[in-house]
């Protein structure tokens, strides 16, 4: 039971990380209807920028600021040079363009900042919290807990931003209705640039957390890909959905990884590790059959 709790909590905490990536997707999708496949690559770029700048001698805080600047510029450039040119194309073309964007980043970032895997030290140690270990005998990493705290803080900040600032309100209006947003008096293109900037910021936070936890390396983009099934489960337009979906995926894939292989082994013989690699996707697939609009998405009937 203790072991089960440990796996579950570990899974939930890594689910927080998925949620962080998924959040970036949701923001862009809500505001511009673009499904940004490159969000994972942006996480990689952000983490690489931080370690890259630190290698050149910048202290952590400066590296983070520089990385933020890079992400913002990058987001604005993407909006200006790619997405704006594709406004009237079908969504699928935009989606494919963001796949191109992901490759662009994955080629460029290591050329600039180097491709060797590196550690990112945020000064938070990845060790069990003694109090919890003593009280319940469960191993919970301090780092994971901090990550969860950061995620909560980020979501709260974003929620406040959307609720109480003029730009935030404009962003929400855009999500509902492009025409209405225009009447607020902020050009649509500025709004999109801002959204890409924010998505870059979210990617930076996710990149810091992921990078510190697993090292900054190319494999990050694969982990980030798991935000896609998270979105299917949570619904593409829902921030709470991204969080709940992330937790669900994180917990279930860890449980599956621990508890399924022995069962399969007794059935078929052989070694069945690596279930984590596909479990979220197949789970999402089954989810689609039951609730195609996601947990928090709205049912939609095409208008004709």
């Amino acid at each position, binding site marked *: 039971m203790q072991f089960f709790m440990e796996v579950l909590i570990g899974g939930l905490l890594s689910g927080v990380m998925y949620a962080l990536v998924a959040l970036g997707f949701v923001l862009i999708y809500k505001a511009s209807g673009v499904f940004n496949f490159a969000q994972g690559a942006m996480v990689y770029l952000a983490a690489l920028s931080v370690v890259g700048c630190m290698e050149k001698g910048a202290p952590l805080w400066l590296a983070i600021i520089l990385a933020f600047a890079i992400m913002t510029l990058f987001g604005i450039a993407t909006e200006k040079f790619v997405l704006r040119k594709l406004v009237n194309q079908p969504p699928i*073309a935009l989606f494919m363009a963001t796949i191109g964007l992901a490759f*662009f*980043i994955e*080629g460029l970032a290591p*050329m600039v900042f180097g491709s060797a895997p590196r550690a990112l030290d945020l000064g938070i140690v990845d060790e069990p919290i003694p109090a919890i270990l003593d009280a319940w005998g469960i191993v919970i990493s301090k780092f994971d807990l901090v990550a969860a705290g950061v995620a909560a803080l980020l979501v709260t900040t974003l929620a406040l931003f959307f609720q109480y600032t003029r730009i935030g309100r404009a962003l929400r209006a855009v999500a509902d209705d492009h025409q209405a947003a225009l009447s607020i008096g902020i050009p649509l293109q500025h709004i999109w640039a801002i959204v890409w900037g924010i998505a870059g910021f979210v990617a930076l936070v996710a990149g810091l957390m992921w990078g510190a936890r697993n090292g900054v390396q190319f494999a990050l983009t694969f982990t980030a890909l798991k935000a*896609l099934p998270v979105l299917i489960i949570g619904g593409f337009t829902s921030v709470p959905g991204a969080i709940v979906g992330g937790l669900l995926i994180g917990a279930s894939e860890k449980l599956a990884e621990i508890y399924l292989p022995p069962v399969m082994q007794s059935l*078929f013989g052989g070694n069945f590790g690596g279930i984590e690699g596909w479990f979220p*996707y197949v789970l*999402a697939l089954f989810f689609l059959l039951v609730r195609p609009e996601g947990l928090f998405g709205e049912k939609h009937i095409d208008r004709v």
Partner: protein
Amino acid sequence: MIYREAGQFKTSYAADQQLFPIRQDRIGILILLAVVFLAIPGIASEYWFSAILIPFLIFSLAALGLNILTGYAGQLSLGSAAFMAVGAYAAYNFQLRIDGIPILISFGFAGLTAAGVGILFGLPSLWIKGFYLAVATLAAQFFIVWCLTKFPWFSNYSSSGVISAQKVVILGHEFASPREKYLLVLSIVAVMALAAKNMVRSSTGRAWMAVRDMDVAAAVIGIRLMPTKLLAFAVSSFYCGVAGALYAFCYLGSVEPDGFSLDMSFRILFMIIIGGVGSILGSFLGAAFILLLPIFLDITLPWAAGLLGLPFSNATVSHIQILLFGTLIMFFLIVEPHGLARLWQIGKEKLRLWPFPH
């Protein structure tokens, strides 16, 4: 009178519906067939067959498969490589487990097996569209490769799922040399390309395109969405499956599941984006482009770096390659969404008017 349709009046709809209505195109195709079937086998070297021509044909076939699904039926897939894997492993097992089964039958069954798996993973397309579906096909990509690696039966209990393809013997003759394998692959690809062309120019293809362009209107016209989409998944996976079987039997000889990676699926997707979404010709042009670009870079980049005195590593080549792929995808989507095939079309149009540009 170089490339004109002037004077070639069509007196019946039958004449108008020919595969190549313009006489010069028909002559062109005949010349092309003569070149690829007769001239190339005479002059190309072993290297050309096994490193360029055979993979080119096989990837063209896979791209054609994806183009049927994505280009014609509008259903995005990121799992083409996995369906190739299904084809490769199915062909291997049919050869292994059914005594004396002809290899071409195995290839056909491999295609059918892939088609079955394709239908299974295509089922979500009945509820969902676009990028939702893309995520569902990612499930196919990861799950299939994992299954092939982990269930030892598929690879006849070899280590880590590696299989070595059996000999290719047809009517007692073994296709051993690269030249013979090239001719075999070429014949299969030519026949399947013709079949694909026939499908897309008839009501099967029109149903696919209708679903792609506006599914509600398609349904209102009487097109049943479910069978139409699933047929696209089945035919597409069939093509990818046969391509996978050829990949194992006529190209690499021995393959492992991890070789059919997500990266390969992306490459096939890039082939159709650059070659031309919704174009048979485009599948071939795109495959050629995506296969030749890395070779071109491998040759020119070290040379260019040397010339400029820049530091240079192999990692850089692969990064530049990835960067270029990404840039080209965005470039084509923005500037010429119909890809190289459209450029070819425009070129022909110009030629038709030449030398009077009106």
